[in-house]
């Protein structure tokens, strides 16, 4: 006696789900994770990868099976069966994707909140002296932002904030221009072409662009934020793994867009302090804009 087709279908479905889950868990497509955000991102990726694998293999399987099983044999001139629809079946395949999509949407919203994407940016306590919104002149020097900050409440237009308070957060001002990123540490008056950050300490990048739109992307942090002329943005992250990772401009910004890269160096806490002390100007003399420009570092 033949095995009932319902049983075969059930077994195939179970195998498919298991294969999908296994693939999601074990096939590693992402680069190293080096920020607190990355493992959260990777768990979302696993869920999407599993669902996608199940769906894709299932549909390809159905197409290939149909093409083989229902192919027209030579000499067969008959038609197929005249089935014009099946309402219960159609309800099922409307409801299941709707539920899956809703689940994925809510789950990714939760992850986005954990990343700090839903933090209200404009009553953000960490934003002490960000550049003035209107100060978007094409010619502004990277370090002149200090001068423009006055009584005006700065408006941050977008970005990913940090949900915890400003205590212990390392602020870094990022200026993007054709075709480089400039990093300025207001706490030590250091200007650098590379981003140096300590491991396990929140960092807040306050970003502005001088000419065209750029985007700040560190694949190992799974974070990206456009840097927009005239509209300051923020990006908060906490690095979790010491090492050097690429910073990549991800928005077409001109002929040398592909060459607009830098490096983020994540130091152990001790090493970061050494780097910071070494590059900060001597304490007694208050730093001025001119002295920073004279002492380019890193």
């Amino acid at each position, binding site marked *: 006696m033949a095995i009932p087709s319902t049983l075969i279908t059930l077994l195939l479905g179970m195998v498919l789900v298991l294969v999908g889950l296994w693939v999601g868990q074990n096939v590693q*497509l992402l680069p190293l994770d080096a920020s607190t955000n990355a493992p959260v991102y990777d768990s979302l990726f696993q869920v999407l990868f599993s669902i996608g694998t199940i769906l894709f293999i299932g549909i390809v399987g159905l197409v290939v099976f149909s093409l083989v099983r229902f192919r027209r044999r030579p000499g067969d001139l008959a038609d197929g069966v005249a089935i014009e629809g099946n309402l219960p079946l159609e309800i099922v395949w409307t409801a299941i994707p709707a539920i899956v999509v809703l689940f994925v949407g809510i789950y990714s919203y939760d992850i986005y909140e954990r990343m700090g994407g839903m933090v209200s940016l404009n009553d953000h306590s960490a934003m002490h002296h960000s550049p003035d919104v209107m100060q978007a002149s094409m010619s502004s020097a990277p370090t002149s932002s200090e001068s423009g900050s006055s009584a005006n409440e700065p408006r941050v237009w977008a970005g990913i904030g940090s949900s915890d308070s400003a205590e212990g957060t390392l602020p870094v001002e990022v200026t993007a221009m054709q075709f480089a990123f400039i990093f300025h540490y207001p706490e030590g008056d250091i200007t650098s072409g590379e981003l140096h950050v300590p491991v396990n300490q929140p960092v807040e990048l306050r970003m502005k662009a001088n000419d065209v739109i750029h985007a700040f992307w560190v694949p190992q942090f799974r974070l990206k934020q456009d840097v927009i002329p005239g509209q300051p943005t923020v990006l908060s992250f906490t690095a979790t793994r010491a090492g050097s990772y690429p910073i990549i401009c991800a928005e077409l910004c001109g002929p040398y867009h*592909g060459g607009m890269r830098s490096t983020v160096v994540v130091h152990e806490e001790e090493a970061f302090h050494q780097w910071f002390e070494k590059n900060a100007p001597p304490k007694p003399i208050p730093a001025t804009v001119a002295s920073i420009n004279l002492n380019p570092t890193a």
Partner: protein
Amino acid sequence: MTVASPTDFEPQGLQPQGWLKYFSFSLDHKVIGLQYLVTGFIFYFIGGALAGVIRTELASPISDFVSRETYNEVLTLHGTVMIFLWIVPVVNGAFGNYLIPFYVGARDMAFPRLNAVAFWLIPPAGILLIASYFVAGGAAQSGWTAYPPLSLSTPAIGQVIWILSVLLLGGSSIFGGINFIATILKLRRPGLKLMQLPMYCWAMLGTSILVVLSTPVLAGTLILLSFDIIAHTGFFNPALGGNVVVYQHLFWFYSHPAVYIMVLPAFGLVSEILPIHARKPLFGYTTMVYSILAIVVLGLVVWAHHMFTSGTPPWMRLFFTIATSFIAVPTGIKFFNWLATLWGGKLALNSAMLFSCGFIINFVFGGITGVALAQVPFDIHVHDTYFVVAHFHYIVYGGTVFVIFASVYHWYPKFTGRMLNEDLGRLHFLLTFIGFNLCFTPQHWLGLNGMPRRVAEYDPSFTTLNQVSSVGALLMAISTLPFLINVIWSAFAGELAGDNPWKALTPEWLTTSPPPVENWVGEAPLVTHPYDYGIPEGKIDLRVASGADLWFGGKR
């Protein structure tokens, strides 16, 4: 009373006859459709050559094949040509013009002169765009998105010509859209109800609504952008108090629906092809119609998912994530319906069927990555990377271009009266399918691991996969050779097709091949059941029934 012969319909006058009519301001919707199709293919080969330049440059990690400026011109022209001169005109203009009057039982489009104007805007716009490469400063370099301030600071002449060209093409698209809406709603043969129309009519109705609603927004935006360039106004110039993110909202308000303008007609065409070659009715006609309408409505409110990493507030990101994800539901319904159409059919494994199934597989893959991209946290990592490049090529090439090829194999007998060679067709499918997947599958990994899009140089660790991708592109280029040989050779020496080689029921097959001017000799047929294939369940087809079938009532 006598029966009118085709010659009685031949317009007398200044219009050239014979092959010359294809170079004329013809008002015949079939001539205009083929004008669109052939023009589209010419631009497809130009756009393909540009893609070849990109893949050659990316075969090595350093910028060594063309200059960086030229590379940016090439990628801008590639995107613009493929979208505005190939896919949109072909799936809308070519097949829409050829098929819609047949499907509604009309003798021509509602506005034949507007129709001819819409087509004849395309060659000058295309030539203008290509020619801009040779002007001082070269063609536009800011990508097909032309984001300011980059588009304000790159060489102005090329950018202005680009705007002019896109405006002309947008105008052509709007004229076409108005014409399709009027034809489908007002030129239906008396007695033909809306819910009896072939699915492609519904797809074109939905598409045309999107065209008419969203293309004017793009036109307005590009006019403002051209003011910024020429008259130094400050709409989008932050140095003059302008807002660059507003441009992105306006641009994507058109350009996301543009994706549906490119894929909805393809959905419609597949819905025509599958039932005929599977010898089964189209499964779930009513839900298919409502799915199209749902995609139209949702397609208008998802544009900001292209802007998750730019200046959008958090609530907006949430709304657009949910709205975008939900487009998967009506789209999924359509795919399940096609699978159900195949199930239990008698599938002819010809080129049209193979390309249609290739479309299903590629588009499902692109749809899955699309749902992933709709999730803000996911998108933040891969936005503007090769992951996105791979995703949208799976949608527009793996989806729409595969359907264009399926449609050419399916309707070529109607266009010319001759069949295409099936062996060459299957070879074409095999090379295209392998080349396409070889080219674009590795790009997902590249994007996830740190290769941004629109770069001429990249991290040397990505070299191998980029070379694999370039080999895939080469295969895709080679795959067009059997196709070209096939369509040219078959036009003269192909097997004669007869009027209805597929034994189809839709009205374009119920006339001669090629059809006469004004489509039918005598009255237009009234087709109220365009997908009435198949044997009712429980009945037995006497042509293939055996004695045992008759004895058991076909229920063994």
